[in-house]
């Protein structure tokens, strides 16, 4: 398997775009350069990005920026300039405008449009390059029933809109069929935390019951349109509610013949192998005409999980050493690919090694390229996306849609993830040799 992984990795590496363009180009270069320099600066930058949508004027923006930068003990010269600008009203207006423009630029690299319609150009372009999408509607947190209803309505409207967009596009056989049958073009990712204000860690059935009403509506719409609905996994606090909800609803007779739907397995969870067992047991207990898709991810809430556990004196539910997550990811990849055709598998990682390993296993098991899907994030996985599409693999890009206010939490999380020293993209950008990048975890 190691040889196969190295070979697949080398193929992908050769297909990565060359030249000065690295994956971290996606981030604002100047900002990232600062952020890499020092932790205080990084904190100031993130706190600033976080508050941008709540600022009422350029003056207010500049005051926040200088407020955060005050905490930086040894500011680089350009920061000192910013601080001096903060001393006058005119200076603050200029500084605020520059900073706001910078944040907007960053946001636009991760977020494909304010609305699904505004994202048409990007989504169509991807399809033409042989890349499918999963659209995710960003939004503020759902704390009221009205907000949950609005989110469900936005999702339903997005399904309609995407169906209209994708219908006339040219065929892409690699993206539209696998060994288990046809796969939908329209693919929407939804969040249970946005479908109900009642997710309570100690009462999962409360959130499940409330979200079920709205999710059933979306499943019906997806079935009518022949679309795929993917239910995202979020923090561990909601894990039980989300699993119970999805498996319960998809097991209902009404949804036996569709729509195509999917769940997420987070490899950083210590209990993920047991969760996979549950999913597998479920597939034998229900009759469905289309297999459930399982998207395998590392997991995006690592810091949150560890901090929450530490504050409460609990053992974190996640592996604390990155290599453990990576090894588990590979073990789960094997188990999942062997579980076909009961399941469809999507491998969502920007880690060249993890992706190459999945390719190698698929080949070893005699799978065709379309029998395993790879998923990347818009803005961060662009290079990998091109390499995968260019080498004949099936790739789907996760495309967030939403306005700046809604997008900021997503953006901050992406920024945090990818400026950490352990991030694969950071290592790749730092010029770590291919052999090391492809080494077994």
């Amino acid at each position: 398997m190691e040889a196969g992984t190295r070979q697949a990795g080398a193929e992908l590496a050769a297909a990565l775009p060359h030249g000065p363009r690295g994956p971290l180009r996606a981030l604002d270069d100047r900002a990232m350069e600062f952020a890499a320099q020092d932790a205080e600066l990084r904190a100031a930058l993130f706190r600033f990005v976080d508050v941008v949508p709540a600022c009422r004027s350029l003056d207010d923006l500049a005051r926040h920026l200088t407020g955060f930068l005050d905490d930086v003990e040894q500011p680089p010269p350009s920061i000192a300039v910013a601080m001096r600008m903060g001393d006058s009203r005119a200076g603050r207006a200029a500084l605020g405008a520059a900073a706001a423009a910078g944040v907007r630029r960053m946001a636009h690299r991760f977020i494909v449009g304010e609305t699904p319609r505004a994202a048409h150009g990007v989504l169509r372009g991807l399809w033409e390059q042989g890349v499918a999408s999963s659209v995710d509607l960003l939004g503020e947190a759902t704390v009221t029933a009205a907000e949950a209803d609005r989110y469900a309505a936005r999702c339903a409207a997005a399904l309609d809109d995407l169906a209209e967009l994708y219908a006339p596009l040219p065929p892409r056989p690699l993206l539209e069929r696998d060994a288990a049958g046809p796969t939908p073009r329209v693919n929407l990712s939804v969040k249970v935390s946005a479908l109900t204000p009642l997710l309570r860690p100690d009462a999962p059935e409360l959130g499940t019951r409330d979200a079920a009403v709205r999710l059933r509506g979306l499943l019906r719409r997806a079935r009518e349109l022949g679309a795929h609905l993917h239910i995202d996994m979020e923090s561990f606090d909601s894990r039980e509610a989300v699993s119970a909800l999805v498996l319960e609803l998809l097991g209902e007779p009404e949804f036996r013949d569709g729509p195509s739907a999917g769940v997420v397995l987070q490899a950083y969870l210590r209990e993920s192998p047991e969760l996979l067992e549950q999913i597998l047991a479920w597939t034998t207990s229900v009759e469905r005409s289309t297999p459930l898709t399982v998207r395998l991810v590392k997991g995006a809430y690592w810091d949150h999980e560890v901090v929450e556990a530490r504050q409460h004196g609990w053992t974190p539910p996640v592996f604390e050493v990155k290599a453990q997550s990576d090894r588990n990811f590979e073990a789960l990849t094997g188990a999942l690919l062997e579980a076909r055709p009961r399941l469809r598998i999507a491998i969502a990682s920007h880690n060249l090694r993890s992706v190459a390993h999945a390719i190698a296993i698929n080949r070893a098991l005699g799978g065709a390229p379309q029998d395993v899907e790879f998923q990347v994030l818009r803005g961060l996985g662009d290079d990998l996306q091109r390499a995968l599409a260019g080498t004949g693999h099936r790739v789907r890009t996760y495309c967030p849609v939403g306005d700046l206010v809604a997008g900021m939490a997503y953006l901050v999380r992406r920024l945090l993830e990818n400026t950490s020293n352990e991030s694969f993209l950071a290592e790749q950008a730092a010029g770590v040799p291919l052999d090391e990048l492809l080494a077994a975890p």
Partner: protein
Amino acid sequence: MTLPPFRNEPVLELRRAPQRQLLLDALGALERELPLRVPVWIGDERREGEELRSTDPGEPERAVALAAQAGDADVERAVALARAAAPPWAATPAGERAAALLRTAALLRERRARLAALAVRECAKPWAEADADVCEAIDFVEYYARGALALEQTPPELLQVPGERNALAYRARGVVAVIAPWNFPLAIPLGMTCAALATGNAVVLKPAEQAPGCALELVRALREGGVPGEVIALLPGAGEAGAALVRHRDGATVAFTGSVAVGLEILAAAAAVPKGGAHLKRVVAELGGKNCVIVDADADLDDAVPGIVRSAFDYAGQKCSAASRVLVHEAVADALLERLAGAVDVLVVGQADTFGTAVPPVIERAAQERVARYAQLASSTGRVPTSAGPVPADGWFCAPVVACDLPADSPVLHEEIFGPLLAVERVTGVDAACDRVDELSYALTGGLYCRNPHTVERVVRRSPVGNLYVNRPVTGAMVGRQPFGGNRLSGTGSKAGGPDYLLHFVEPQVVTENTIRHGLVI
């Protein structure tokens, strides 16, 4: 004796189903024992009775504990025994006292599910809150045991010059009257009691009349852990027993947590030295609050809304730390109010023993009526954007309410309601909000949602409160992490669970010994 460093007792991980089941099983087991019988328990003497009855606030016909009611004679006997037993207990090395307390903590840990279940039944604390109450009780024991040991082993150093030896030591004060509330029926009585015991005092505990069952479990654990019965008397009873205890000639300290009205009475009564009395009584008081949360224009409402809802409505707002006013910047006031009202409308009002319940019944009929009066006042003089849906008929339930547009002098804005009612006011900015906070005579907790570090600093400087929370809920103080207590009329400035709390239970003594004999330093 050295102990491992203090760490907070972890709450149960209730997001995992087996941990929830553990609690439900414990409740089933406890119910077979109810009602508990709580005696007046002084030394070896237990006098049972049924004069006092605690009931389940969610099902008032269900008796949780039947207790004897302490009278003047009981107070007399309890104080006399405590007074006699205090000197030997004070002479016991702090390490031995600490060991007894740590054994108590271990027993509480073993019984944690049962204790939480009892708090659910007797005080209608929802599970997560009940479990946190048990953990805080354990924390207090562990924290004060260590603190008392440190006080004995490493007292502050004094200046030394040749020919004299100076030493500062802290001595127990004698008999401590502990008068406890029902809203943290385990943590607060045990915290005050253990602070006194750890430092070598003898305790006479008068628990809240609504929660004698919880107090009995605490005293049992203390005795089984090795605290001599003579230094921990249990006097279940009503207000009169507490008043007699406060006035008693031989009490040295009164530790009280409760309302401002009773607190002021206690302070006045304690100030009078009875004939033959030998103490200037010290009162450690944690009183009420009218806690405000300030929301600036740059606040993240995604955080602020859930944080405020938790602060104001968890345990039906029956915490002295609970938020009862929100002062919001006019730029975000409409958005906040709409989301807050919507978030309150989906809160589950229900029985404390049901996971997911956010707003359990309030403690008793009088509380329900009081909350209803304020809610009525709010809707007749202001606006109530919440829908106040139906609540269960049996039990002392109150619908959670958000009120706004109230007149500036409304009692809803100035009096402690101690229930699920939150008032929202629009302000021109954080400075105007600080002015309003400053007008209050209460100063317990405060909250601020704001992302500008300069503004945060300014509000910190202007806040009179004992505990200020920035960008998080204002409840849930943890022992050792957020020493808790209010200023102004909210308390005597003592900080429960903090490094200087024990100093209220001791008196310093300085011994200076001349070491010169015949002109030589020996």
